């Protein structure tokens, strides 16, 4: 009898531990998800409205991270760095749009890919020249340092919670921007019918520049937020860019709602894959070394597998752009 109780106790303990781990990993997944959403929202809008594929979107993320790190370090305040990074990223985005990308809207996607690839090379080298090739590490701001118990016994870093809340706030703000403002109305109209928007007598060039700047601002925001949890380094933009592509393919190009769902889905699959897959495989496969190797391989590929599966069943992603 006593033995059975002990067994049950152990089982409950294990279950609770698993639940705690699960909760923690779910929050991690959301944190990755909102970062991806910040990237994907801009990229998908630019694609939906200008029919433009922009590989250099990751560069705005990198610029946001570097400016935030540099200004934050120089002033000693993370927040000042953060607040400077956003307009800088937006301005760089708008400048790039006006100088180079505007000429590419009517070209085919191949030209856009190549030209924006050229931009990536340019921005990466420029960053290396200004800030050097070494990675920069940014400390977590004191206000958000440490952990908080989300439920008793489960501590979670405050800063990561802040990222999640920030991302959700931006998602809501973006939604109200798109649903209830005039610019948002034009964005929606532009995504589904470009001719109509120009027929309305709207200055379409200005609308495009604004949308581009907004996308760059969101990417810069993501970069600035990423500083304290990831290394700020050259090439960081491309790493997240590819993930962002997966997000908008899964979500459906041009759809902001798709970007949100896709981002959370990719965040969940990637995080759960890395956290739980090795354990699961270990219980299924006798040889631990094989299980570990397989676990590492599959979890690093999991989001691409997700994307392939989505495309097999929905070749144009989960959501269609407005209407």
């Amino acid at each position, binding site marked *: 009898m006593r033995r059975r109780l002990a067994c049950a106790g152990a089982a409950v303990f294990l279950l609770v531990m698993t639940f705690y781990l699960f909760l923690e990993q779910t929050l991690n997944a959301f944190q990755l998800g909102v970062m991806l959403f910040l990237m994907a929202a801009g990229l998908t809008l630019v694609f939906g409205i200008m029919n433009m594929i922009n590989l250099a979107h990751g560069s705005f993320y990198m610029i946001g991270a570097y400016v935030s790190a540099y200004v934050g370090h120089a002033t000693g305040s993370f927040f000042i760095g953060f607040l400077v990074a956003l307009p800088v990223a937006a301005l760089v985005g708008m400048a790039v749009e006006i100088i*180079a990308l505007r*000429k590419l809207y009517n070209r085919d*996607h*191949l030209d856009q890919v190549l030209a924006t690839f*050229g931009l990536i090379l340019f921005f990466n080298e420029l960053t290396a020249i200004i800030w050097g090739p070494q990675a920069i590490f940014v400390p977590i701001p004191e206000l958000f340092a440490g952990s908080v118990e989300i439920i008793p016994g489960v501590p979670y870093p405050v800063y990561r919670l802040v990222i999640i809340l920030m991302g959700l706030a931006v998602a809501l703000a973006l939604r109200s921007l798109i649903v209830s403002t005039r610019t948002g109305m034009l964005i929606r109209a532009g995504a589904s019918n470009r001719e109509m928007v120009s027929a309305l007598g709207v200055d379409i060039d200005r609308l495009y520049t604004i949308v581009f700047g907004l996308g760059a601002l969101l990417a810069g925001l993501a970069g600035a937020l990423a500083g304290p949890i990831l290394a700020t380094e050259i090439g960081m933009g491309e790493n997240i860019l590819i993930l962002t592509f997966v997000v908008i393919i899964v979500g459906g190009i041009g759809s902001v709602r798709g970007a949100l769902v896709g981002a959370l889905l990719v965040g969940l699959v990637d995080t759960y894959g890395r956290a739980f897959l090795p354990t699961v495989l270990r219980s299924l496969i006798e040889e631990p070394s094989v299980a570990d190797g397989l676990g590492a391989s599959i979890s690093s*590929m999991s989001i691409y597998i997700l994307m392939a599966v989505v495309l097999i069943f929905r070749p144009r992603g989960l959501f269609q752009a407005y209407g």
Partner: protein
Amino acid sequence: MDKPVVTRKALVLGLGLVLLLALPPIALAMDEGFFISLFSRILIYALAAVSLDLILGYAGMASLGHGAFLGVGAYVVGILAFHLSDGSPLPFLPGAWAGTASALIAWTAAILVSALFALVIGALSQRTSGVYFIMITLAFAQMLYFFFISLSTYGGQDGVNLEQRNTFPLLDLGDDTSFYYVCLGLLLGFVFLCKRLVNSRFGMVMRGCKQNETRMRALGFATYRYKLMCFVIAGAGAGLAGALAANQSEFVSPGLMHWTRSGEIMIMVILGGMGTLFGPILGAAALLLMEDVLASYTEHWMIILGPVLIFVVLFARRGIYGFLAGPGGRDG
């Protein structure tokens, strides 16, 4: 309006061929043996670029993941060499084959395995089109990139070193000049093959798909299978290039599959002239030479390459080959 005896196009091609044939003796005479290995690299990337142009310029499929097949081909050579020196049998294969250093076997295997990867990736990617196709091919290449990084047996991020180049009947590939001529022979052979291909019935189907796939289907062509076949052929070509690249540097790493590599191959095609068979060769030469020259001036040479690229896209659409060979420069 007499047609000249020697067209401008023939002149450009003839000069190019003579230059490539004569390069090793000239380089040796000038005591600049370094040029031979630089140009071997150019020939290898030219092979990869020509294979990409088959799908990009002829069949109209913008793949941004062509580096994947380059990497797979290289890894086949690397893995076979690894097991040969290690003495351990290859995993997942029946029997206890402990690898090989024979070029004929290893390169054939590289071609077949990368064709197989192209078959799977192509079959899935073909369900999409346009910008989705660009992104999904990119993502598949990244997937393989991460897969090979996670393969700790084969060095993970650091890759595999080859103890020596593959063995070839009658030739010592370890000798840079012999290796150069093997690369040149394979490139010319592949270009000749492609030349026949793009003008064959199959080639006409590919070109038709590029111009108007809806019309092709309405005419009764099941376009999916022809485009897939084309994708597989291109993948096989890139796999051969990968096998050569592994031999050239005697080193294989996941870096070959990184998406920037795919981007570079695509740049070679556009820079040289898309939809031509000789353009990508010129593009490969131009990009790698530019890299070599600029890198000797500044380590930040990409800050120049980037804007050059944008300029080419915006203002010089016909590429180097179109510029050199004139209006008649299109093949076929």
